[in-house]
């Protein structure tokens, strides 16, 4: 792609995808917070029945799953950016990246298990 006179941009091209992915996942999370907030407001009170009632229907479970996935992707990009900014030794950075990914996958699996036990 030529920009200006003769400049050609090259690279791995995952920057734009990650940048966009973080913003889209942010919108998904905002939408999810609004849905949970509205459901609770409709329930009128906050106790076990109303709270678990919000997450009982399958569509809400699936929406919560999507929000969990969005959260993991969002957190992965954000935390990865923090490591990239402050951690310079390549080995340590790689270890932190792997630990972050494994940790988020663990949390994602946990959230599935929580949701389908209701």
């Amino acid at each position: 792609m030529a920009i200006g006179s003769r400049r050609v941009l090259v690279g791995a091209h995952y920057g734009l995808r990650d940048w966009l992915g973080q913003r889209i996942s942010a919108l998904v999370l905002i939408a999810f917070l609004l849905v949970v907030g509205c459901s609770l407001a409709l329930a009128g009170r906050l106790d076990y029945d109303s709270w678990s009632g919000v997450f009982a229907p399958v569509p809400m479970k699936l929406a919560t799953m999507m929000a969990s996935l969005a959260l993991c992707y969002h957190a992965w990009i954000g935390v990865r950016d923090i490591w990239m900014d402050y951690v310079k030794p390549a080995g340590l950075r790689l270890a932190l990246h792997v630990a972050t990914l494994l940790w988020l996958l663990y949390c994602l699996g946990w959230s599935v298990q929580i949701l389908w036990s209701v």
Partner: protein
Amino acid sequence: MPRSQIRNIAPGDLANYRLPIPGVVSIFHRLSGLLLFLFLPLLLWLFDLSLSSEQSFDRLVHFSQAWTTRLLLLALGWALLHHLCAGVRFLLLDLHLGTERMAARRSSWLVFAVSVPLTLLFALFLFGLL
């Protein structure tokens, strides 16, 4: 008179460096995001307690009445609210809305003007005053 040269600051200069308010919003956005990430297992555990059974829900209520838990939840509540408000501001900036210096400063103050009162409301809820 020669113009003063602007260089990257060293850690020792941090105490003297006055970060502009959009910078404060930005670094708090990062800090709050990291805080939420680090305490994700705690939040999941609380989510688990809240949904497993009526007994576990009662345990959660009991647990959330301890002072240390309240303070921790208050910190995480602030982190979420700040991250949310600052995040909405960043999304608007990405759409090229409010990128002028004065507008960016005003919206930075607005982030605090929204997130801090909401955090206070959450504090009242946590401490059973609401």
